[in-house]
């Protein structure tokens, strides 16, 4: 007989109490002393320092400390300041603040140091600056530029601080910006997001830059261009949250950085920008306090905790078995999943036969048919609302897409005839690229802007043609086993899933592409065409489509088999757009049969629970 340890790798534990839930999320902290914004901040979640805040151009000298429970007044600075959201570095008892703004100057040069009990003046910054980008510690900091002139002009000139003097590094970062987030050390720093208002008004940035002490290199892009976000941590384990974009949309989004990729975490409760954080805290323990919620400022504090990194705690793991020696019960942690489609805010332009790209909180919808004409209309979704962007150069329907919101690919379709026209989107506008070898309508796509895949579609009949895109041109590859149009796709150029569609009738067949050829997999439960999709080859979602009428049916693919989801779209539709992952998908637009603006968000939520094992 197999032993439990042999199966699970550990013995059944004896515990005095049930393990705590594995929690990563936000909880309420002690309120900030006032509803303010634009304050400087540094320190950790349980030892935070705040200094200055917005006061109608005059700034304040006030500073405060947080102990993990409540805020207390701290000694005042010598210089009143505002617009110092990212102008501090160090810890609660060893901090530096530089620049900012008050009634005396557009930008301040004054630098002050805090030792836990008093503020002392230090060497002036070389130029006037506000909304600067500081990181590091009190004796070894970097200021990676900031706001150097009105209206919203940014500099990327870098200066380093040694505890007394600022000196030009000669190693400026690439993107001049203000209202960014920066954290880390003088030799391992990070700069993300930000904004300029000149030369192009309301320009927001998503790019991340990493500094190694001598050179800036590009890091993983933030999911959506955002300014006035906050966070902290290290170059390889960071966290960023909140901020705003051009809508103006204030966000509660939280993202975790692993040194190369930002991954969505759980949202704050209150969306905000220009607030404070635990800049020298960690990606597992951080803090958001005060800030601007859009129409008002707030004093609300939220604490982020990810218990999972901690040793010494007994945290619930799904499948974990233990004996509770207090209650004398054998228990285990199970996990139940629930799926649901929830209504999101509508698109601006009703249309069907459109295409989509991106993820649930940063999606792109483009092209289609409005009911009276083809359209090239492009819209961006931020997880809450759709914003119109620049249209495609060629309006069309029956189009396919790939990529992400800030680097999307659009190809094929029909304007006056089948087209192979290809366009690339950079987060702002579309640029023509080389056409498909085989012009067609109603194919589908997968992959990225620089490694895309087009397959299936309709020429004079359904086609199986497959083409690979390398960021410049299309190359023919091996065809699908089943020629079809109005199918759906998911995945990457080298691990693709194609499913459903129409030969002359609706089909359920599924095929997997490995970068070279297509192999048949298990069928959808419901044959359909004009369906939408999300996810990757081993974890995909199919939803909507047309059978003999529009359907709301949703199916989940696990790499082998399709399973009917208990959740169905609220609005049955076909020829809609799709984006996202299997666990967080987005459906938008489509025919009902009239063209709709309706948006729906799909989520799969797993909930851990404790069960008691009973033996009769």
């Amino acid at each position: 007989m197999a032993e439990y340890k042999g199966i699970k790798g550990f013995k059944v534990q004896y515990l005095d109490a049930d393990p705590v839930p594995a929690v990563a999320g936000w909880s309420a902290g002690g309120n900030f002393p006032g509803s303010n914004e634009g304050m400087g901040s540094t320190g950790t979640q349980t030892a935070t320092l705040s200094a200055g805040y917005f006061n109608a151009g005059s700034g304040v000298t006030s500073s405060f400390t947080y102990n993990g429970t409540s805020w207390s007044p701290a000694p005042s600075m010598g210089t009143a300041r505002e617009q110092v959201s990212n102008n501090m570095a160090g810890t609660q008892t060893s901090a530096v603040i530089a620049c900012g703004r008050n009634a005396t100057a557009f930008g301040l040069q004054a630098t002050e140091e805090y030792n836990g009990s008093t503020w002392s003046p230090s060497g002036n910054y070389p130029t006037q600056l506000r909304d600067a980008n500081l990181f590091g510690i009190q004796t070894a900091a970097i200021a990676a530029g900031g706001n150097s002139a009105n209206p919203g002009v940014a500099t990327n000139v870098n200066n380093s601080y040694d505890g007394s003097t600022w000196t030009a590094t000669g190693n400026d970062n690439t993107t001049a910006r203000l209202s960014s987030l920066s954290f880390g050390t003088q030799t391992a720093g990070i700069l993300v997001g930000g904004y300029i208002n000149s030369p192009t008004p309301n320009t927001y940035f998503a790019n991340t830059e990493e500094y190694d002490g001598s050179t800036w290199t590009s890091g993983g892009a933030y999911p959506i261009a955002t300014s006035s976000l906050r966070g902290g941590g290290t170059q390889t384990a960071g966290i960023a949250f909140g901020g705003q974009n051009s809508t103006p949309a204030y966000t509660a989004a939280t993202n975790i950085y692993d040194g190369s990729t930002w991954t969505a975490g759980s949202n704050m409760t209150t969306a905000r920008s220009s607030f404070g954080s635990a800049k020298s805290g960690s990606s597992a323990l951080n803090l958001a306090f005060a800030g601007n919620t859009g129409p008002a400022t707030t004093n609300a504090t939220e604490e982020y905790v990810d218990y999972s990194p901690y040793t010494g705690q007994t945290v619930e793991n799904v499948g974990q078995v233990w004996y509770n020696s207090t209650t004398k019960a054998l228990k285990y942690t199970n996990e139940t999943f629930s799926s649901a489609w929830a209504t999101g805010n509508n698109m601006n332009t009703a249309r069907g036969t459109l295409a989509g790209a991106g993820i649930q909180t940063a999606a792109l919808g483009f092209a289609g048919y409005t009911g009276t004409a083809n359209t090239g209309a492009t819209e961006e979704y931020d997880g809450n609302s759709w914003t119109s962007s620049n249209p495609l150069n060629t309006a069309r329907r029956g189009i396919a897409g790939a990529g992400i919101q800030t680097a999307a690919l659009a190809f094929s379709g029909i304007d006056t005839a089948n087209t192979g026209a290809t366009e690339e989107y950079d987060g702002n506008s579309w640029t023509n690229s080389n056409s498909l070898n085989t012009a067609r309508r109603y194919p589908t796509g997968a992959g990225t802007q620089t490694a895309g895949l087009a397959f299936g579609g309709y020429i004079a009949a359904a086609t199986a043609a497959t083409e690979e895109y390398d960021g410049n041109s299309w190359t023919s590859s091996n065809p699908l086993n089943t020629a079809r149009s109005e199918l759906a796709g998911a995945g990457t150029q080298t691990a693709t899933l194609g499913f459903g569609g129409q030969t002359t009738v609706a089909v359920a067949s599924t095929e997997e592409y490995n970068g070279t050829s297509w192999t048949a997999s298990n069928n959808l439960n419901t044959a359909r065409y004009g369906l939408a999709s999300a996810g990757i080859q081993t974890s995909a979602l199919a939803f909507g489509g047309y059978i003999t009428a529009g359907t709301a049916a949703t199916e989940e693919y696990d790499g082998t088999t399709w399973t009917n989801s208990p959740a169905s779209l609220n609005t049955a539709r076909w020829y809609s757009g799709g984006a996202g992952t299997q666990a967080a998908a987005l459906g938008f637009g489509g025919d009902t049969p009239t063209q709709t603006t309706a948006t729906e968000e799909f989520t799969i939520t797993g909930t851990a629970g404790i069960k008691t094992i009973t033996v009769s």
Partner: protein
Amino acid sequence: MANKYCTATNWGKDFFTARERMNFKLSGHPGNVWVVEDNLYGAKWIKKVSGVSKTKEEAQAIVDAEVTAAQAAYDALTDEQKLNTQRPGPITLK
């Protein structure tokens, strides 16, 4: 997913906990308006914080009033004060 709406004053620490937020969706909005996922845990939280229930329309009206007031305040700013800031936009409750 259905939501409930209420007003409640955030007293700070433990007004909502991370564990509570694992069990229901919660978002805070101007005017002390809270959008709470309509499930057992959400209802329990509204009771905990002595939330005053509102219809979606009532909650939206409170938020709209806050936005309107903020827009008026923004419009009264000088051009210099408006630099690098944006006029508050509408907020639509889910």
